[in-house]
């Protein structure tokens, strides 16, 4: 199972998130996108294969930009990191049907734990032995 990470910035929350994911997912199975355009292109190219997209919306504007691609994003298994806990932000976020919501100011141990479970569950469904699961 592949992980597509969208984080506009290589610093701060983006860096923390990437490091957290890299600690459990083998390198070849992570693809990092720095623009929404690149993200949608990558997701389109993936076809309908198993993948989880971890999206960091560091600002409200970034979340709004993601919503313009809701038709592509909402069909994927998403973990969405939000800029804040406002009601309006949450309402917007749920238009993408994320499987898990986290927040920018967290350490992202929660995201890593959810990803591990997703890998485990997918491997169970596939009967295991895929060899691309997380290093747990």
């Amino acid at each position, binding site marked *: 199972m592949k992980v597509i990470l969208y984080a506009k910035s290589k610093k701060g929350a983006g860096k923390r998130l990437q490091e957290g994911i890299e600690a459990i997912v083998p390198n070849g199975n992570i693809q990092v996108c720095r623009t929404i355009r690149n993200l949608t*292109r990558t997701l389109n190219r993936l*076809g*309908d294969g198993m993948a989880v997209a971890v999206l960091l919306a560091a600002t409200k504007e970034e979340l709004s930009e993601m919503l313009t691609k809701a038709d592509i994003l909402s069909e994927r298994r998403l973990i969405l990191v939000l800029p804040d806990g406002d009601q309006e932000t*949450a309402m917007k976020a749920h238009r993408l049907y994320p*499987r898990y919501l986290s927040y920018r100011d967290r350490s992202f141990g929660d995201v890593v734990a959810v990803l591990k479970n997703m890998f485990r569950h997918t491997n169970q469904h596939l009967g295991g032995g895929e060899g691309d699961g997380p290093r747990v």
Partner: protein
Amino acid sequence: MANVLIIDDDEQISSMLSRMVQRLGHHASSSLTLSSGLDALRSNAFDVVFLDVRLPDGNGLEALSTIRETASSPEVIIMTGFGDRDGAEMAIRNGAWDYLQKPISSKEITLPLKRVLQYRENLSKVARPPVALRLDGIVGHSPAMRKCFDLVAQAASSEASVLITGETGTGKELFAKAIHLNSSRAKRSFVVVDCAALPETLLESALFGYVKGAFTGADRTRDGLIRQADGGVLFLDEVGELSLPMQKSFLRVLQEHRFRPVGGSKEIDSDFRVVAATNRDLDEWVKTGKIREDLLYRLRGITIDLPPLRKHREDINDLVAHYVAKLCWAYGHPIKGISPDFLEVLTAYDWPGNVRELINTIDRALAASGQESLLFPKHLPKPIRIKVARGSISNGEDVAVEQAVASSSSSIYPKYREFRRARLAEAQKTYLMELMALTRGDMKQACQISGLGRTRLYTLMKKHGISRTG
């Protein structure tokens, strides 16, 4: 006046029932065999069928679905002379209105008949939703799917909790979204709770939210998913995976629509509606103590049991056309044609992974077809073709089938060198396009990242027709 059909091989019972029905002011017809009963159903409209189980030419229970799917979609009341709990359960599961054990008194007939006719009358008043259902992403027109659409309409117009069951890949989440989209809650959130992905340690805070200082790292108060679903739908995906303690906590929330955030002292209200989904047999899980019976009862206001794809093969053509177009569009390719034999193979295969497996297969076939404009069976994954070929031959010729598939493939399969050259070119192009997107056409940065010299990079970009602007 309603039309009632009695299918029973016992002439005495049949005429007695006919008289009872006529006395109640309805029209009665009778058939002594299953086949003549089915003929009658195909040529006339009936409101109710009294159906015997053991008939000379078949089992009534097994014909139940066929009867329900005839044009007038009659309600069926099963009658049998043999007490059979499993049969009763099967009858109700397959959509029977009621299950009566012979000998049947006039009173026992009158009441269910009256009720079923009231139900039919009511149904005819509200039978179809005034506007067409929005079924985004759901494809199909088979009787099995239409039955599910009717249940979506029914669920959308009510506030009852809904349990969607079905094998992996049957589209449970799409149906849950359709219920939300067609309901009065459509303008509020559809909140997904992935019960299988959320670790036990996170589940409580994710669902109920928490207050500042509730635990290490809780440096501000945050709403949970239940609060975020206020006015909307809380979708519990893979609900069978909830732990027993969590089931207990959640049951209380379901009953009272009130909860206390982690570390909080005040209770909060949330007007959410629950739609749950599972691929587990929850009745079995109740027996083994993995799921609470009271929770299951709460979740099961309306049940939608999605059929596996092998049970509605007639939808495969539409599904293939839909997803070929969709995937071609996503890849930016012209829409490819579909050869009849490509469809034949897909229709013959059993699809253990259901619609999701079909979509993945189409995806792989599109990749295998390269620049070709038409999809043929040769583009399908070999294991699928072998399974279909094996299934089409009685037995004893399996080896020959594998050899035939392998040799037919070898004649169209590319040489390794050609394959490698094509794939390498494809990979190079993808890499360069992403590199340009990543660096926004900054050649210096692109050289640094890729480790390529400027001249080599320009040569490769020219070869693949890639510009710096992507």
